[in-house]
C-alpha cells in the first residue's frame, strides 16, 4: 500500500502528518481502523447478548411474559426511527460524494433529529417502567410480574438498552461533528472519508438495535 508516492497530491486541508504517503492510502487505513473498532464494539455487546441467552434458557416463560409487557409500539417505532436515520446518513454520504454539501447538511440534521427522537421515546419508556416499579436489580418492585425471571429480564433490558443509548449519544456527537465538517466544507467530494466512517459508526448503533428489538419486544 505505502508505495513510493512522490506524485503531488491535491492540497489536503488537514495535511498528511502521519506515516501515509497518499490520501487514498490514509483513507483506506481509516476505513479499516473503523471496521476493526466496530468488530471490537460488537464483542462488547456480545457479552450482554450471551448473558441474555444464558438467562433466557433458564427463565424462558418469564422472559416471554416480560417482553410482552414492554410497549411494542415504542420499540417498533424506535426501530423505524433508527432505520430512517441510518438512511439519512447514507444519503448524506451520497450527497457529499456527488458534491452537494447543502442538502447533505440537512440530511445530517435529520439524522440528529431522529436520534434525539429515539432518545426521547426511550426516556418516555424508562419513565413508564420506573413508575411501574420496574427498576434494575434489587430495586425491582413490580407486583404484576414478580419473581427472579422478570427481574432478570428487566435488569438485562436496562443494561442492553442503556449501553445502546450511550452509543446513540456518542453517535449523535459524531454526527454533529460531521455536520459541522460538511458545513465548513472540510468534508467534501474529494475528502468524504470522515463522513463515511462516522456513518459506519451510526450504522452499528442502528444494527445493534435491530437485534435488541426482537429480543426485548417481539418474543
Amino acid at each position, binding site marked *: *500500500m*505505502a*508505495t*513510493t508516492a512522490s506524485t503531488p497530491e491535491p492540497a489536503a486541508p488537514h495535511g498528511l502528518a*502521519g*506515516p*501515509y*504517503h497518499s490520501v487514498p*492510502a490514509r483513507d*483506506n*487505513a481509516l476505513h*479499516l*481502523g473503523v471496521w*476493526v*473498532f466496530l*468488530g*471490537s*464494539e460488537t*464483542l*462488547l455487546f*456480545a*457479552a*450482554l447478548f*450471551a*448473558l441474555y441467552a*444464558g*438467562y433466557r434458557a*433458564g*427463565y424462558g416463560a418469564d422472559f416471554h411474559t416480560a417482553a410482552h409487557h414492554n410497549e411494542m409500539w415504542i420499540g417498533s417505532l424506535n426501530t423505524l426511527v433508527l432505520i430512517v436515520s441510518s438512511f439519512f446518513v447514507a444519503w448524506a454520504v451520497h450527497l457529499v460524494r456527488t458534491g452537494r454539501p447543502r442538502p447533505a447538511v440537512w440530511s445530517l440534521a435529520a439524522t440528529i433529529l431522529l436520534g434525539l427522537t429515539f432518545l426521547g421515546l426511550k426516556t418516555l419508556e424508562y419513565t413508564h417502567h420506573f413508575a411501574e416499579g420496574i427498576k*434494575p*436489580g*434489587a*430495586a425491582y418492585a413490580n407486583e404484576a410480574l414478580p*419473581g*427472579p*425471571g422478570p*427481574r*432478570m429480564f428487566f*435488569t*438485562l433490558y436496562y*443494561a442492553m438498552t442503556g449501553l445502546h443509548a450511550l452509543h446513540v449519544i456518542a453517535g449523535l456527537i459524531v454526527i454533529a461533528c460531521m455536520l459541522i465538517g460538511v458545513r465548513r466544507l472540510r468534508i467534501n467530494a474529494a475528502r468524504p472519508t470522515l463522513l463515511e466512517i462516522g456513518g459506519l459508526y451510526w450504522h452499528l448503533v442502528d444494527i445493534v438495535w435491530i437485534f435488541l428489538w426482537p429480543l426485548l419486544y417481539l418474543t
Partner: protein
Amino acid sequence: MIPDHPAAAPAEPVVHEIDFWRDGRTVGSWLLTKDHKRIGIMFLAGVTLALLVGGVFALILRLELLTPDRTFIGPNAFNQLFTHHGVVMIFLFMIPAIPAGFGNFFVPIMIGARDVAFPRLNLASFYVYVAGAILLLATLLIGGLDTGWTFYTPYSTTSYSTVALAVVGVFVVGVSSILTGLNFIVTIHTLRAEGVTWHRMPLFVWAIYATSIIQVLATPVLGMSVLLVGADRVLHWGLFEPALGGDPVLFQHLFWFYSHPAVYIMILPAMGVVSEVVSSFSHNPPISYRAIAYSSLGIAFIGFLTWGHHMFVSGMSVFDAGAFGILSMFVAIFSAVKVFTWTATLYRGRIAVTTPLLYFFGFTFLFVFGGMSGVALATASLDIPWHDTYFVVAHFHFIMVGGTLTGFLAALHYWFPKVTGRMYSERWGLVSSMLVTLGFFFTFMPQFLLGNAGMPRRYWSYPAHYQWMNVLSTAGASVLALGLLITFGYLTAAVLRGRRAGPNPWGSRSYEWRVPSPPPTHNFETLPRWRKGPYDYHYGNGGAGNGDDRQHA
C-alpha cells in the same frame, strides 16, 4: 524532511539522520511524542516497573510460605498480596510487555513503515495504560483487593475490599490493549513497504498480528463482564447474584472467554520473539516459515474455543468437559508445530551461543514442560483432583509466565543493541540467564509436586510436611530475583558505557537490522524496497555487519 546530518561516528557510516534518542531531549518531547519507538520505550519503562512491583509482591508471598504458620503476614494480607501480584503481573506486565513495548518499537521498522497507522492513537493508548495502572495501584493503596485476579462472583460483589475501583482500572487497561491491537492490525495491513508481502514479514509481525486479533475481539468481553461485577456491587443489579436470580457461573464463562485467549495475548508475542532469535543465532531460515506463521493464527483462533477448561469443577456436564478438553488439546498441536520447527531450525545452523539464544533454550524447556502439564490439565478426570492446587499454579507459571518472561528477556537482549546502539556484557548475560532459568525452575517445579500432593492454592498456611518443598520454592524465587536484578544492573551499565554495536552485530538478515542502531526518528530516509527476505541466509557471508542489502526506492 529531516535534513541530512554528517555521519555521527565512523563506525556507522549509514547514519544521516540523528537517532530517535537525540531527536529532542526535553521531557515534553517524550511525553508528547508520536514516534512509535519512544512510545515503545515508555511502555517498556512502565512494564518494567510493573514487573518490579509484582515481583516484590511475589517475594513477600514466598517469604510468608517459608514456614507452615504465620511467618510475618496474616491471612488477609496474604489474600490481598496474591491478588495484587496477579493483577499487576497480568494486566500491567504480561499483556502489554511484548506487544506494546517491543511490538511498538519493531513492527513498523520490520514492515518498512515510518510509524504505526495512527500515531496519536498510539500515544493515547499509552496514557490510557498509565491511567488504568494508576487506578489499579490506587486500589491497592486505598483498601486492597482480595478477590484473586479472577474477580469471581459472588465473592467479588461482597468482599470488603476495593473491588469497584479495581474493575474500572481493569476496564481502562483493556481499552489501552484494544487500541494497541487495532493500531497494529491496520498498520500491518496498510503500511507494508514494497517487497514486504505477507509471507515476507518477519515472524514476530505474524505473532503480533495474531495477538492483536485476540486483543481486539476478546478484551471487550472482559471489559463488559468486570463492569457488570461493578454494577452488581455498587447498584445491586444482581446479574451474577443467586439471591436475585443471577448465576455466578455465567460470570465465569464470560470471564474466561477473555481470560483464556488472554494467555495467548501473553505467549504469542513471546513465540514471535523466539522465532526471530532462533533464526538469527543459528543463521538459518526457519525450517518452515508458514508453519510458524499459520500456527500463530491457529492458536489465536482455537484459543477462543477453550475457555471451559477453567470450569470443570463449576458444574459442567461431562460432554462439555470432554469437548472443551479436546479443543484445548488442539492448542498443544499448534504449539508443538512451533517447538519442532524452532528446534529443527537449529539443525546444521551456524549457532552463536548468546544470551538471547540461552533464553530461547530456557523458553523451550519451560514451555514444553508447562505445555505437557497443560494437556494433562485439559483432561477433566485429571483436572478435577488437581484443580485449585499448586499443580495449576505451577502449570500456568511454567507456560505463561515462564514463556512470557523468558521471551521478554530474550527480546530485551536481542534488540538491546538496536534500541540503545550499545552492546551488553555477554558474560553477565550468561550468568543472569542461568540464574533466571534455574531460579524459575526451582521456584515452580516443587509446586507441581506440592499440588500433586494436595496442597491447595491461595492458602497462607499449610501442614508441616509440605514445608521442605515450599522452602525450595522460595529459594528458587530468590535466585530468580537475583538473576533479574543482575540483568537490570548490567543492562543499565551497558546503556551508559557499553561498546558501540553498529547496525547489525548479530549478522541477522531480518529487516530491523538494516537500519542504523539506534534508528533515526523516521526509521528510513526513503521508504525501503527490500529485495531479500528477512531470513535470507543462503547467500554470501552471513557474518556480522553484512546484513545491509537495503535497496533504495
